[in-house]
């Protein structure tokens, strides 16, 4: 089982972002790292200056680097950014929207969790277009995951295994909205919330987080106790999505559990120390509400 690190979804200070990836390159036992700003096209220029150094450091450390494409591409600027990405000949692009498929199909590429692949027919279609790796949408139940891995054994199928779950993308920026700013003049207020802005219900229950134009869960996905079932289901890679916590230690813990150096129980307890005060969820995998946690001895559907 491989480990991959998804792109940083939040608007971190560029230097912090660079140093985060340098440390991942030097210390984290992950096989694959997806980089690039995929949430908001306005943020991309901040990271562009550090991107070559980050990629170089990661590759030098033996990681496979994927360049993530924007999730929602509607404006001309976003189209240009996406087209430029597709032209990168020597990198492996992680497609997060079908926009770049037109220029990239026929070439090897990866597919991120924002492309709707819900079944074996869609997976086979993408495999025929050159998809080598597919990170499936987080809301897929295990039965669907297993049917897909069986249909495309040549493709590395990955599931979203750690981090707040991306739930929606919008043309509207909620950070700007709650700060009473226009999107075009947002002052990049999303940089105040390195782990997203918590959204509570009227009963003061933690529920969601917002990250600019993206909405994520409040609960943190953790599939450590489901690893055995995922392996049986043909999953070949687990995705860890960066949160504002020690991601090197998160990756080590996953690696330790995968390699049998730690049991899942101890691994989960350790993760809850690394990323405290956030409830754990795995409901989607078990056909349960996404916010919920289903004990691993229950039958999986």
């Amino acid at each position, binding site marked *: 089982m491989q480990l991959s690190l998804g792109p940083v979804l939040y608007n971190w200070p560029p230097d912090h972002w660079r140093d985060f990836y340098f440390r991942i390159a030097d210390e984290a036992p992950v096989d694959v790292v997806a980089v690039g700003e995929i949430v908001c096209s306005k943020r991309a220029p901040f990271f562009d200056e550090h991107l070559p150094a980050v990629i170089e450091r990661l590759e030098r450390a033996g990681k496979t680097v994927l360049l993530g494409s924007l999730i929602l591409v509607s404006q001309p600027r976003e189209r240009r950014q996406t087209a430029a990405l597709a032209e990168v000949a020597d990198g492996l692009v992680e497609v997060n929207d079908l926009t770049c498929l*037109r220029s990239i199909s026929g070439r090897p590429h990866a597919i991120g969790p924002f492309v709707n692949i*819900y*079944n074996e*027919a*869609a997976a086979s279609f993408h495999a025929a277009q050159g998809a080598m790796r597919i990170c499936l949408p987080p809301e897929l139940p295990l039965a669907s995951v297993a049917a897909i891995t069986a249909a495309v054994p040549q493709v590395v199928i990955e599931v979203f295994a750690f981090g707040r779950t991306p739930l929606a993308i*919008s043309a509207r920026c909620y950070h700007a909205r709650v700060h009473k700013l226009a999107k075009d003049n947002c002052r990049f207020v999303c940089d105040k919330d390195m782990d997203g802005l918590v959204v509570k219900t009227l009963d003061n229950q933690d529920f969601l987080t917002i990250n600019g134009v993206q909405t994520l869960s409040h609960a943190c996905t953790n599939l450590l106790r489901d690893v055995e079932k995922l392996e049986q289901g043909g999953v070949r890679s687990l995705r860890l999505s960066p949160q504002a916590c020690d991601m090197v230690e998160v990756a080590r813990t996953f690696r330790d559990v995968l390699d049998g150096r730690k049991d899942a129980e101890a691994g989960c307890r350790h993760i809850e120390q690394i990323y405290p005060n956030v409830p754990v969820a795995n409901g989607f995998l078990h056909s349960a509400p996404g916010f919920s946690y289903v004990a691993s001895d229950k039958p999986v559907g």
Partner: protein
Amino acid sequence: MELICPAGTPSALKSAIEAGADAIYCGFNDETNARNFPGLNFSRSELSEAITFAHGRGVKILVAINTFPRASALELWQRAVDDAVKAGADALILADIGLMDYAARHHPAQRLHVSVQAAAANPDAIAYYVETFGARRVVLPRVLSVPEIAAITREVSCETEVFVFGGLCVMAEGRCSLSSYATAKSPNMQGVCSPASHVAYAQTAQGVSSRLGGFTINQFAPDEPAGYPTLCKGRFSTELGAGYIFEDPVSLDATRLLSGLRDAGVSALKIEGRQRGRAYVESVVRHFRHALTALETGGEADVTRLKPFTEGQASTLGAYRKTWR
């Protein structure tokens, strides 16, 4: 511009036709369509009768098979495609790339429309569907401004269809798991958003509260207008205050933008609301039929008429006006 109208029942379909629809979109009574609500939609025989009825009056029937097939159960969706073709559907509205591939291979002569659920929001994505599956029309996601719609329509080689009235997804359509996060059921998989089975209303001293999957998502004072119990139109709080974080309860009404949409080259205008009653279908279709006639003759359309049908008794131009973002 063609007026595309919703029908959740054969009766609503007749009402829409009487009120001036050019085409009706509808779906089978199962999880293959994105309005898989109790008591709604068409059996196989109802669809066949509807197509005969509509064709006799020069009206087209578009069949929405716009959820994403469940793995290991593709047959249910493929059969929906086969049956809709056999029944004589004028077009299929599809979202899943695997199902489009199936339809294009098995029914190459069948007209295909790219559902809004496919979220094809720019000319490259749209061209991909056109070039790969021969799609003839794309229903544009509700994330675009009118100038952006015009630019897309100029550039793509298929027709464009846009929503002009009704429920407004605040999130990019087909890319939202908010509902399944709270209830385990999602538009993409089960064809339901905020399924009624997971909704509870409670009358309290302060008015009515709505809960979804156990989460309180709104509270309305006794006379305060309400909306659907969807998460994107719920009241929540952040450290910056409480209120409608995503969007107010409000419906799209683009009556005032019809000339702009026509000038943008849009081929078809779509009214949301297959889950609504006959009274809604008849009134909203009639309103837009009048508005389109007024557009041709230079008359004025009444822009206040549809207020009672809107969520929160309020309307918006949504992303069509750039400042909405």
